[in-house]
């Protein structure tokens, strides 16, 4: 089995290196095909592992010693247990299809080969992240994912906005990574190991304060990657990257790393209910906060990005309330329907010459029938309509919140579910139905290549049926994760389902009815919150004013005053002094032997005097 593990892990990096060979060449179709094929191989190996890893068997390999310094020992160890195998399968499924889709999407791009190299490297980093058996390996994957996201978001680096968004994503993540790193340091200092097995076996021996600190710092890392408030602004701006990248990074893999970390460290978070409760509250807040920003946005991809943010909030609620398997389950179903939504958005962008404003679209159903069907299905799944995937996972989270007596959290999530349904179908209505507004702007939409649609089909099918795997999934992952079953009476259960479905259908109905007649955003303008939502609660502006501008001022001060006036001046002075003294004493070398001898005698006398007067130790 070990060989499958190695194949699953290393196939993507082989593809990446292969594509990198052609990095600066013009487009070569072979790079896209080879990387996709290797990803497919990785997927097969992951599926093989999924079948192999069951009740008591996990695959654990130690590839080699990595760091051995004093008492500090870290191995390059990888593990395929129930949780990481689920992540591997999710990641490789989505990535393989995204790779195939990208061949079509990027077919006219100059950086075709470069793009595939980065994309595969990204998948490799994510595989390292989920498969590592220790925190340091996880951190390497974590950073690799950050680096590749920077490369991919900034793929069109000649565009200022793309370069800026890439830097923002990278820097935001770096801030959070510091927290993560401190968490890992704390673990090592207190437990002397970073291996999951040893850490989780011994974490209970620590005092409560230390565990709390570890939990908080690790969660700060998770907040950055999973774009939780207040480090959420990068996610929406990261939509500057090519759309398949958004599908891969910002729906299925990278942002889920934070949830994965919390799920993986459940042993730590079970011991600190206060922190867990905070995670749940923050998740619920983000769920509703991000959904509200999606209500009025007119940018096709940003709406989906906010939706991702909101769904990540749901996952954190589940994880915070101790329902780790439900968090993982929602992570998986979300990965399927969200990636297909992004890919559908990619089709629309292709058809509309990269136009993103949904107010300029409308009526695309005639020219893009299949995209319309797939996106509608995915939106239904996102909204949580029975029997699609989103219903099962989201409903479980709501049940969890309700049954553990967190009625307020439940209420927020419930409102969030309504908003989700509304903005999803506002998007569908504005893009695919109604008046054909694009004609005014002179667009000639066309359906995407057939193989792009075929690549989307498996994801769309999974978005429909993934929910039915709920029970096998639960049995599978609860071998490792703690079992959790929301305890509600059957009456309450039916009530909850009805209420949740009710608000979701209500949201859909509202969007469908209002937007089939025309624009409904006027309503938000009327109640005066349109500008607030449109400007993302002025948080980016606030960051700009409160953090970036003062920081720029401090930097300028440090540059002009401290660096140039003190540091540079000192160095320049030393250099100038040496240069000048050399210039002045150059005259000594007259070439006259007599003069040289005089200088020699002079030096001899000086040394003699020095020997006379300088007696160390006297």
């Amino acid at each position, binding site marked *: 089995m070990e060989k499958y593990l190695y194949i699953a892990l290393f196939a993507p990096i082989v593809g990446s290196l292969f594509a990198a060979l052609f990095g600066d060449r013009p487009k070569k179709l072979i790079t896209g095909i080879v990387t996709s094929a290797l990803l497919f191989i990785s997927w097969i190996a992951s599926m093989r592992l999924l079948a192999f890893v069951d009740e008591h068997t996990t695959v654990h390999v130690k590839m080699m010693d990595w760091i051995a310094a004093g008492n500090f020992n870290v191995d390059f160890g990888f593990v395929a247990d129930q949780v990481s195998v689920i992540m591997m399968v999710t990641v490789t499924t989505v990535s393989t299809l995204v790779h195939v889709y990208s061949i079509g999407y990027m077919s006219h791009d100059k950086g075709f080969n470069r793009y595939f190299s980065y994309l595969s490297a990204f998948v490799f980093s994510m595989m390292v992240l989920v498969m590592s058996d220790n925190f340091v390996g996880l951190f390497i994957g974590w950073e690799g994912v950050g680096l590749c996201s920077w490369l991919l978001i900034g793929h069109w680096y000649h565009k200022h906005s793309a370069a800026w968004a890439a830097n923002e994503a990278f820097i935001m993540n770096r801030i959070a990574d510091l927290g993560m790193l401190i968490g890992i340091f704390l673990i090592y200092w207190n437990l002397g190991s970073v291996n999951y097995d040893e850490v989780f076996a011994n974490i209970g021996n620590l005092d409560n304060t230390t565990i709390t600190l570890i939990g908080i710092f690790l969660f700060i890392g998770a907040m950055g990657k999973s774009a939780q408030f207040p480090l959420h602004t990068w996610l929406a701006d990261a939509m500057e990257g090519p759309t398949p990248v958004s599908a891969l990074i910002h729906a299925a893999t990278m942002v889920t790393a934070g949830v994965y970390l919390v799920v993986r460290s459940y042993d730590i978070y079970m011991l600190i209910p206060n922190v867990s409760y905070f995670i749940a509250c923050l998740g619920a807040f983000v769920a509703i906060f991000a959904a509200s920003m999606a209500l009025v946005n007119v940018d096709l991809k940003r709406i989906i990005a906010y939706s991702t943010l909101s769904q990540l909030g749901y996952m954190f609620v589940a994880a915070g309330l101790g329902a780790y398997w439900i968090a993982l389950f929602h992570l998986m179903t979300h990965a399927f329907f969200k990636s297909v939504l992004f890919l559908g958005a990619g089709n629309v962008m292709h058809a509309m010459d990269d136009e993103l404003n949904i107010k300029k679209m409308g009526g695309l159903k005639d020219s893009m029938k299949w995209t319309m069907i797939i996106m509608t299905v995915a939106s239904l799944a996102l909204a949580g309509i029975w029997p699609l995937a989103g219903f099962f996972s989201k409903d479980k989270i709501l049940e969890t919140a309700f049954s553990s007596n967190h009625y307020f959290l439940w209420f927020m999530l419930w409102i969030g579910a309504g908003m989700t349904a509304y903005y999803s179908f506002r998007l569908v209505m504005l893009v695919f139905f109604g008046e054909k507004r694009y004609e005014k702007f002179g667009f000639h939409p066309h359906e995407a290549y057939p193989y792009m649609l075929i690549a989307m089909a498996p994801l769309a099918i999974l978005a429909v049926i993934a929910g039915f795997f709920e029970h096998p999934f639960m049995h599978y992952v609860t071998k490792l994760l703690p079992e959790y079953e929301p305890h509600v009476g059957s009456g309450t259960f039916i009530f909850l389902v009805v209420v949740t479905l009710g608000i979701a259908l209500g949201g859909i109905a509202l969007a469908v009815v209002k937007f089939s007649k025309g624009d409904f955003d006027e309503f938000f303008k009327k109640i005066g919150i349109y500008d607030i939502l449109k400007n993302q609660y002025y948080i980016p502006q606030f960051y700009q004013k409160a953090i970036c501008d003062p920081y720029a001022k401090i930097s300028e001060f440090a540059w002009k005053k401290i660096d140039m006036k003190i540091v540079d001046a000192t160095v320049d002075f030393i250099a100038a002094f040496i240069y000048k003294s050399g210039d002045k004493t150059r005259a000594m*070398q*007259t*070439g*006259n*032997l*007599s003069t040289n*001898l005089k200088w020699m*005698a002079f030096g001899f006398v000086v040394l003699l005097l020095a020997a006379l007067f300088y007696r160390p130790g006297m």
Partner: protein
Amino acid sequence: MITLTHYLVLSAILFAIGLAGVIRRKNLLLLFFSTEIMLNAVNIGFAAVSKFYGDLTGQMVSFFIIAVAASEVAVGLGLLVLWYKRTGTIDLESMQEMKG
């Protein structure tokens, strides 16, 4: 009574004379003389101190110096003769080809 001090003073005086010659003289031949004076000043010092402590090492070193000085003079005078044949002078001022 002649003590160690007298020898050392003589050595120092000879050395100073040699040094002054090295600095002042322009004639290469005289420069050689001056260096010889300085070397022998040191030899006197060595011999005197050696005798004073009853240790033969100093006198041995003196012999070494005499031997080295003799060979050095042989080589030096050889070069000097060559220089004289080439330029017709043995004045120091004539050797100024390397300037800073």
